[in-house]
């Protein structure tokens, strides 16, 4: 099945980023992946405090999006290889079945937007107030 990986690499220099990309794509190939494409999303300021597996806390990262195909279980095989990678900040893998999500209203199901789920809410959940006679 198809997967996509958001690879965030440390930005030291162009050569380091290239070396990091080469090593991370090598990890994928070692796990039996067939790499389809690599998209460069550019250098961005990291939105949250990320701790790299090896090294200090960087402030800027170089984002790549890797599309590949591999047998299932690639995440478990990739984890030990990424653990000691000196170039990577994050490299989470996601499968492409997320794109198959379909809105319930597009399949003909009646959308319940604007309708009350519990029309008799006040009658059903009213709390009796007053003194109890006992």
């Amino acid at each position: 099945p198809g997967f996509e990986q958001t690879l965030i690499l440390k930005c030291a220099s162009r050569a380091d980023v290239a070396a990091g990309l080469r090593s991370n794509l090598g990890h994928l190939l070692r796990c039996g992946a067939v790499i389809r494409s690599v998209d460069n999303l550019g250098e961005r300021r990291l939105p949250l405090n990320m701790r790299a597996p090896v090294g200090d806390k960087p402030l800027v990262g170089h984002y790549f999006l890797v599309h590949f195909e591999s047998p299932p279980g690639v995440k478990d095989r990739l984890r030990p290889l990424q653990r000691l990678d000196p170039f990577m900040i994050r490299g989470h893998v996601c499968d492409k079945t997320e794109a198959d999500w379909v809105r319930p209203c597009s399949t003909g199901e009646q959308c319940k937007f604007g309708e009350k789920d519990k029309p008799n809410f006040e009658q059903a959940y009213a709390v009796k107030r007053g003194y109890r006679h006992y």
Partner: protein
Amino acid sequence: MLRCRLVLTAVGRGKLGLSTGAAPAGQTDPDMPLADMPDPYKKPIKKCVLCRQDVPLDYKNARLLSQFVSPYTGRIYGRHITGLCQPMQERVAELVKKSQKFGYMSQNIKETFFLSDPALFRNPLSGPSVAAPASKSSKPSTSSTESEKDGN
């Protein structure tokens, strides 16, 4: 003297050019209302903003997902604030969590360069509702090579 009443059958009436009493084409009974007429009392289907515009959601589209997140705490607004239908609200929440995990969005804040985005709903912390041009806000920022450097 015999009196006989002439009773014409439907076939006979048809031959003489009279109305046969049969229903018009596509209808069983001529006295009943038309079967293929649309219900004039049917209410129009109301949809939330995302369903109406058929906006494609993606975890990489941090700009679109940040519109449903508080700028102060980074928390996802509830359905009574966003005005989304339940499946879309769950989907947005799921994608925000995924985006945060993958490193596209922050968990505690909203990016400063997203603050000037048009509001899709009335923010509880701001003033009166902001009329948002739906076409502009529904335009997703695709994963392009834009570099998001420090917005300050």
